[in-house]
């Protein structure tokens, strides 16, 4: 395992050369929101448009053949990155769509099931009153609101696993929250607000014990650590490309062939069909069944370059680098007066997203002072508003690192926090 060399890596990212706010060098500590893109990703996408752009899976001319080959071999590369088979990976526009796809399987199957004359739906997806769906108190809105909606449309009940004061999933109630009436359990692998890495295998095992479908939101884990997808023990896993060096506009749903086959389609239209008549249609097998219409083809090619870039660095090396940097950041924040980390304070089973509050200062004001010094962090509820409420804060400031960050970036953030305390007179 070769350790990462962030100074060298930075040179592959054109944007990291720019300055902000009157000539300050950019210190980008917002990769949990979206990562920056290396030149090789931009080159790959452009090369696709300049050499073989065409409709995939539809044309018989040479461009169409080449485009189809590029699109499907990108799928194979992305699947390989998580040790999956290509046919288990569905392209979506982002993780949010992937999680909606999972949640809509339930509301759609329930609606179709209720209408006489429809082909019978797989009972695993049909929600009856008294059934429930389980999430946690540390979910991103993308893994909460779609399930609220599925419940609202079917009369099922939404339940959640609580979070402990130190930012861990509280599993004491695992066996009571998830019960015989649970039809789906959807849990975040690594919290984007707290940084916590959850024991999803344990939660998925309990889900399967009661016959519920297991879903994992891996948006913050797959970009940062080696993931062998089957080891999560889930039926479905969602994540996004833009957080792992990939283009905007592409996300993924991995699923076991058996579950993908059993799910009703979500978006319908061209390319996902088998036979179409005016009265009725039949559908292709997964993954095509879930890929209606012209897809984000150029983005799949860019994504392939992204996973190749990550693989060349080595996901083990990336995880080790971030672990070291996270430890350093936690130590430096711990030494600051008036600063409280929201989330695990020990560097165990935790990722590189670190949320904190500063006594007497609103996160927006902390972020603004950091920004004035060129340091880009995220402030707000990070699309995990209920998690903020759980910790009694309206919002937090979050710094999050990636392959191109090093200790000097953390130091810049720490100096910025001190400057904010001084500026607002709270130090």
């Amino acid at each position, binding site marked *: 395992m070769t350790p990462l060399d962030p100074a060298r890596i930075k040179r592959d990212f054109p944007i990291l050369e720019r300055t902000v706010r009157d000539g300050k060098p950019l210190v980008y500590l917002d990769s949990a929101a979206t990562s920056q893109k290396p030149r090789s990703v931009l080159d790959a996408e452009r090369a696709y448009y300049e050499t073989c752009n065409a409709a995939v899976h539809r044309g018989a001319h040479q461009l169409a053949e080449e485009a189809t080959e590029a699109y499907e071999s990108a799928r194979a590369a992305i699947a390989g990155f998580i040790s999956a088979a290509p046919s288990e990976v569905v392209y979506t526009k982002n993780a949010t769509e992937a999680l909606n796809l999972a949640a809509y399987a339930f509301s759609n199957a329930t609606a179709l099931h209720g209408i006489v004359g429809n082909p019978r739906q797989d009972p695993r997806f049909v929600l009856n009153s008294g059934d429930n769906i389980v999430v946690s108190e540390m979910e991103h809105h993308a893994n909460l609101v779609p399930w609220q909606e599925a419940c609202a449309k079917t009369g099922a009940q939404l339940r959640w696993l609580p979070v402990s004061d130190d930012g861990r999933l509280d599993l004491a109630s695992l066996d009571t929250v998830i019960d015989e009436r649970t039809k789906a359990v959807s849990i975040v692998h690594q919290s984007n607000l707290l940084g916590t890495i959850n024991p999803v295998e344990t939660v998925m095992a309990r889900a399967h014990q009661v016959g519920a479908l297991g879903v994992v939101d891996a948006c913050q884990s797959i970009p940062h650590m080696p993931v062998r997808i089957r080891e999560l023990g889930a039926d479905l896993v969602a994540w996004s490309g833009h957080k792992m060096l990939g283009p905007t506009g592409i996300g993924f749903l991995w699923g076991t062939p058996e579950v993908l086959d059993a799910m009703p389609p979500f978006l319908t239209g061209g390319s996902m069909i088998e036979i179409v008549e005016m009265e009725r249609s039949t559908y292709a097998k997964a993954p095509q069944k879930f890929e209606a219409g012209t897809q984000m083809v150029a983005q799949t090619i860019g994504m392939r370059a992204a996973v190749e870039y990550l693989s060349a660095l080595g996901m083990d090396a990336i995880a080790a680098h971030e672990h070291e940097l996270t430890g350093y950041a936690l130590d430096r924040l711990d030494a600051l007066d008036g600063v409280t980390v929201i989330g695990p304070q020990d560097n165990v089973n935790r990722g590189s997203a670190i949320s904190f509050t500063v006594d007497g200062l*609103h996160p*927006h004001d902390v972020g603004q002072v950091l920004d004035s010094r060129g340091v880009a962090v995220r402030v707000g*509820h990070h699309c995990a508003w209920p998690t*903020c409420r759980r910790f009694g804060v*309206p919002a937090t400031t979050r710094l999050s690192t990636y392959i191109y960050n090093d200790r000097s970036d953390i130091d810049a953030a720490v100096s910025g926090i001190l400057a904010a305390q001084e500026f607002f007179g709270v130090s």
Partner: protein
Amino acid sequence: MDLNGLYQDIILDHYKHPRGKAALDAPLASAHHVNPTCGDEVTVDVAADAEGRLILGYQGQGCSISQASASVMSELLEGASVEESVKVREAFVAMMHSQGNVEPDEDVIGDGVAFVGVAKYPARVKCALLPWMALQDAQIKAGLMAPKEETR
């Protein structure tokens, strides 16, 4: 960037010493607004005295900009006529949407001029406007709008 241009002393002073920050006992109407990106919130209460002059109250939590803005608003509009309140609000809103390119009129918006630097920061414009939008809503609910606005 010039932090002092954004956080002018007037703003910091209103933030640290908010004027008029309290709920009304018997509001004619109230409006609760949130900034969905950061969770900041403000509740504005309105009532009117015998001459139809505004009585204001507010509560809330948020950043220096949104809190100072609420304080400035309360100071400017407490006891103002409905017409005045509309004029002041429109001037403040126009300034916030100017990207910092207009010279604000201190005669109209008083301490509000201190927010001209905020207008250069699109992400903070929403913070400054939060209490003013809640005020507009509360005035509409209470029927305390200038005739021209009611018919728009």
